[in-house]
Structures are given as structure tokens and as C-alpha cells.
């Protein structure tokens, strides 16, 4: 029977044992329309017979695919076109705090031109954030599509915002981590509260709130807009410092390498509390400052409340700016380290200059360093290190 003949030919062809004449014969049948269904069946049957395990792929092929996969799954955070704004227009960097005036490269000394290596460091154009589930699994936000845990759904919306929604009857924690050198990431919790995380920060939170408390923990810096819920108080914790929120908008700056933890209230009402220690209520426009280090006894640490707060400066990070008002070089450099994910090294005495003004965060690092050089801070960029002399 013809079917048998073709089956035999195909089998030999696939096994590599067909003679030239047999290959020729099979090829002729392959071009005859009436035998196509049969051949397709034979192809499927052969696939059925194949077993995993006795073959191999080169590492190169595996790597190549994974690279393409990674590239494909990146949802790039939309970039504002003012990233390419020229140096003169985007940097208004001045000395002193008494008066503000703009400099536009007047009287620049030749030797102060920043020596920038070929490898410049660009501002981050996307978020490298990832979510850690309760079982320890880490999912990069980039490749996240949607995920359900205990009836609570987590989706990534079109603008890369992460949204949790649903109810649960037990507390399950996730952690959103935004590494250094990453754009700000935006998340909505299941109660409708919003959190924005700066670079080098994280927030640990229940995927759905149970009971009469909503408790989250942070490291680094986050801005919250908490949804009102009279029955569930919202707490933000860092170490033994807790902020009790009564439906509001506030910023918490809690980087470990800063001198103090700052909670700044924009709207609503919060109470800043040190466990077993002081507490202070804040009104909008006020800032509570708790000094580090945390290893000092709770009773010794005080909360200082000031109302002399420059909100623009506090919220600059969320608005894509560095805003400096009488800011020293070290504070500025620490912000630079987190945003660009670089290391700043001082080789000599740390300059005592103070700065005022604002700089867009979306410029290349070399551009920023150029400006600093113009104002007398000698700094160089080498790979991912900024060296200040």
C-alpha cells in the first residue's frame, strides 16, 4: 500500500538511513498535494515518539533566547522628552543661600572641565523594581503580567503601575523593592492607598488588609497617599519608629545613611511615634525629625517637629528633580548615589560649599558633574565611581 511505502520512507528519512533514491522518491511524494495530509500525520507521529533528554543545545542558543526574552518583556517607563534639554537650560546651580542667580558658563576656568571617561552614566530610564512574595519568590516588575495570591489579584497596569485588589482572610506579605539606579515606582495597595518608592527603597505590606490595622514597613524613601478608612488605622514602620496615619499624604525619608529619619506631612494628619518613647502629632506642612543612630535608648531619642519645611525640596524626588536649598555636597552626593547607582568617593577634605537650585534628575551624570566642576567642586567620573577631590 502506498501509505506504508511513504511511512517507511519518511521513517528512514528522519532516522537518517534513507538512500539517495529513497530521498528522491519521498521528495517527489512530498510535492504531490494528495499526500500532504499523510505526511503531516507522519510528522506528528514522529514527534510523539521523541523523548526529552538525549539531545543538547549550545549555551549560546539558550543565552541568545533569554536575552531576546528579557528585552521583549521590558515595559519601558515613558520618558519625558526634556531629558535631552541642554546643560544651560536644565541646570540652575548657584552658590550661597542668600541670593539666587543663574549662571550660564560665565568665566569657566579651563582646568575645571570635568574629566569624563568614555563611559558616562545615564539617568535611569526605567524601574528595576521587583516584588518578593511570601514564599521568597522574586518577580521583576518588568516581566509581571498578573498574579493571584489567596484571591487577591496583582496586575501591572499599562503605565507600569502595580495594582493590588481583593479581600483575604489572612495576612500575606509581599515586598516591593526598588533598587538603586532605578526610576520611581508606583503602586496601589488593595485598600486604594498609593505608594511611590524612590531608588534604593522597599516597602513590605499585606496584599490585603485584615483586621482593624493596616501596617506596612519601609526602608529608604516613600511617599504615601493613604485612603481613608475610619475602621482601619494605617501605620508605616521603620525600625522602632512608626507613623500613624489618619487618612493623608506624607513623605517618609528613612535612608540608613542619612542623619535622621524625616516624616513630612503634606495633607491630613499623622502622629509620629517612637516605640516606648516620644510621639508627636503633625499638621500639614510640618516635619518630624528623628535622629539616628537607632541603637540609642528610646528614651534618649527625641522627635523634633518643625514647620519650616520646604515641601518642594522634600518631594523633589517624586517630581523628577534634585532640589537643593543650602544643601551640602555630601547630602547631594548621597542622592546622586542612589539615583544613578554609583559610588561617591572623597579623596581629600570634603568641600564645605553649600548649594541652592534645582536640577532635573533625568540628565546624564556627566552633565551634573560638569556643573559641579564649574562651581569649584572638582569631580571625575570613572566607570561607576565619582571621585571628588
Amino acid at each position, binding site marked *: 500500500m*502506498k501509505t506504508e511505502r511513504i511511512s517507511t520512507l519518511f521513517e528512514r*528519512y*528522519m*532516522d*537518517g538511513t534513507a538512500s*539517495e*533514491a529513497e*530521498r*528522491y*522518491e*519521498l*521528495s*517527489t*511524494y*512530498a*510535492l*504531490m*498535494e494528495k499526500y*500532504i495530509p499523510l*505526511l*503531516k500525520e507522519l*510528522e*506528528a507521529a*514522529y*514527534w510523539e515518539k*521523541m*523523548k*526529552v*533528554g538525549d*539531545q*543538547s*543545545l549550545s549555551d549560546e*542558543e*539558550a543565552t*541568545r*533566547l*533569554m536575552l*531576546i*526574552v*528579557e528585552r*521583549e*518583556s521590558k515595559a519601558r517607563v515613558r520618558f519625558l522628552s526634556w531629558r535631552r534639554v541642554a546643560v544651560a537650560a536644565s541646570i540652575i546651580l548657584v552658590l550661597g543661600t542668600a541670593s539666587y542667580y543663574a549662571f550660564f558658563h560665565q568665566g569657566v576656568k579651563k582646568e575645571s572641565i570635568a574629566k569624563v571617561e568614555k563611559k558616562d552614566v545615564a539617568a535611569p530610564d526605567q524601574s528595576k523594581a521587583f516584588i518578593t512574595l511570601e514564599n521568597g*519568590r522574586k*518577580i*521583576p516588575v518588568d*516581566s*509581571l*503580567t*498578573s*498574579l493571584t495570591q489567596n484571591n487577591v489579584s496583582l496586575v501591572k497596569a499599562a503605565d507600569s503601575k502595580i495594582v493590588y485588589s481583593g479581600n483575604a482572610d489572612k495576612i500575606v506579605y509581599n515586598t516591593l523593592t526598588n533598587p538603586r539606579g532605578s526610576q520611581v515606582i508606583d503602586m496601589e495597595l488593595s485598600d486604594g492607598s498609593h505608594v511611590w518608592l524612590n531608588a534604593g527603597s522597599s516597602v513590605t505590606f499585606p496584599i490585603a488588609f485584615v483586621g482593624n490595622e493596616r501596617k506596612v514597613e519601609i526602608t529608604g524613601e516613600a511617599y504615601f497617599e493613604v485612603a481613608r478608612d475610619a475602621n482601619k488605622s494605617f501605620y508605616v514602620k521603620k525600625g522602632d519608629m512608626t507613623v500613624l496615619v489618619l487618612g493623608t499624604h506624607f513623605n517618609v525619608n528613612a535612608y540608613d545613611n542619612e542623619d535622621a529619619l524625616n516624616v513630612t506631612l503634606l495633607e491630613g494628619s499623622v502622629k509620629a511615634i517612637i516605640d516606648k518613647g516620644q510621639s508627636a502629632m503633625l499638621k500639614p506642612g510640618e516635619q518630624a525629625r528623628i535622629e539616628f543612630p537607632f541603637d540609642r535608648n528610646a528614651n534618649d531619642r527625641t522627635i523634633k517637629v518643625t514647620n519650616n519645611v520646604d515641601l518642594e525640596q522634600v518631594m523633589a524626588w517624586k517630581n523628577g528633580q534634585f532640589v537643593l536649598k543650602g544643601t551640602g555636597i555630601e547630602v547631594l552626593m548621597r542622592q546622586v548615589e542612589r539615583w544613578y547607582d554609583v559610588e561617591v568617593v572623597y579623596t581629600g577634605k570634603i568641600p564645605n560649599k553649600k548649594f541652592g537650585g534645582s536640577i532635573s534628575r533625568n540628565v546624564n551624570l556627566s552633565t551634573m558633574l560638569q556643573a559641579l566642576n564649574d562651581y569649584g567642586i572638582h569631580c571625575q567620573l570613572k566607570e561607576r565611581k565619582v571621585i571628588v577631590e
Partner: protein
Amino acid sequence: MTPYNEKELLLLISEGDSDAFRTLFLHYGPMLKSYLLKLSRSNETAQDLVQDVFLEIWKNRERLRDIEHFKSYLFQSVHNRAHNSFERQAKETLILQELFKDKSPAIEFEAEDQITAKEVSKFIQKTVDKLTPQQRKIFLLSRHEGLSHQKIADQLNIHPQTVSNHLSDALRFLRSEVGRTFGAYTAVIVILNELL
């Protein structure tokens, strides 16, 4: 090393876990490549198809949530292109046979197929005849002997670019001739394209 649990792996991938995807790829990729290699006789075709199919599967990873047997799903995703590559190599075999020998092997086709077989053979002959002597020579050296453009150029004492030109002319011609006649298969009639 944790045991391979496919259902769980597919679920992880559908949620965006690229490590899990890599595991799946390393598990099934080799088998698919081997299959495609046997079917198409072309390393390049096999490699490209494996990449294309897995990339497509990744792009549609949400569907993996409902897949019971990945091996079947994989085949579903690739079987049309796989068949086309088999057809392609069949045409190539016939053409080469025609070029390399003066006569094609004497095969006794049964009555019903005699006419079709004769048609196929005649057509291949006609197509091959339309090649210029130089095109034919270069085509044989490239396909039958597997020589690189440089080696062919050295052997024939011409410029490698000339070799490339002749070859692409020949292929373009074969492609259009074969495509026109075997109309039923014109969906993907790309003959011998990996040569270029």
C-alpha cells in the same frame, strides 16, 4: 536539583517568571531542535525556528496557565512551519538530483502517481534548464558540495561578489518558478533561502 514539575513551571511562567521559562526552554528546546534538524536538514532553519517558537510562547505566556501537556502545545505552535521546512528540502533534493546527475534515479511510481511524478520531474528539469551554466555550476558547488562563497570564487577564479550575485539570481529564479507551478503550496514557498 529539584524534580521537574511541569504544571507548576507553566504556572510560574504565565505569571512572568523568566527563570522558569529558561528551565522549560532547556528542557524542550534540544528535542525540538533535533526534530527540526531531521525534518529540514538545515541547522540554520532548525535554530531559527526553535527561537521563533519559544519567543512566541513567551509572548503569549498567559495561555500556559491552561495548558495540560506542553509537548503537544509546543508541536501545535510549530507544526506548520516545520512541515514547510520539510517541503522546502524536498524541492531542494529534487533540484540537486536533477543538477548533479544527468538522469534522475529510475523510480517506478504506481499508475496513479506516474503522471504526477512525471509532472514533478519535468517541471524540475525545466526549472533547472533555465539556469545559466554559471548559475548551475555555482549552485551545485554551494548546495551539493557545501562550499563557501570564497571557496567557490577561488575555484572558479572569479570575485566572491560575483558568486553571491549568481547565487541570488539562481535562487530568486527557482523561487519564482517553483512557486508559480506548485500553487497549492505558495503559502510559504521560499526555496533554499538560507543560502543567501
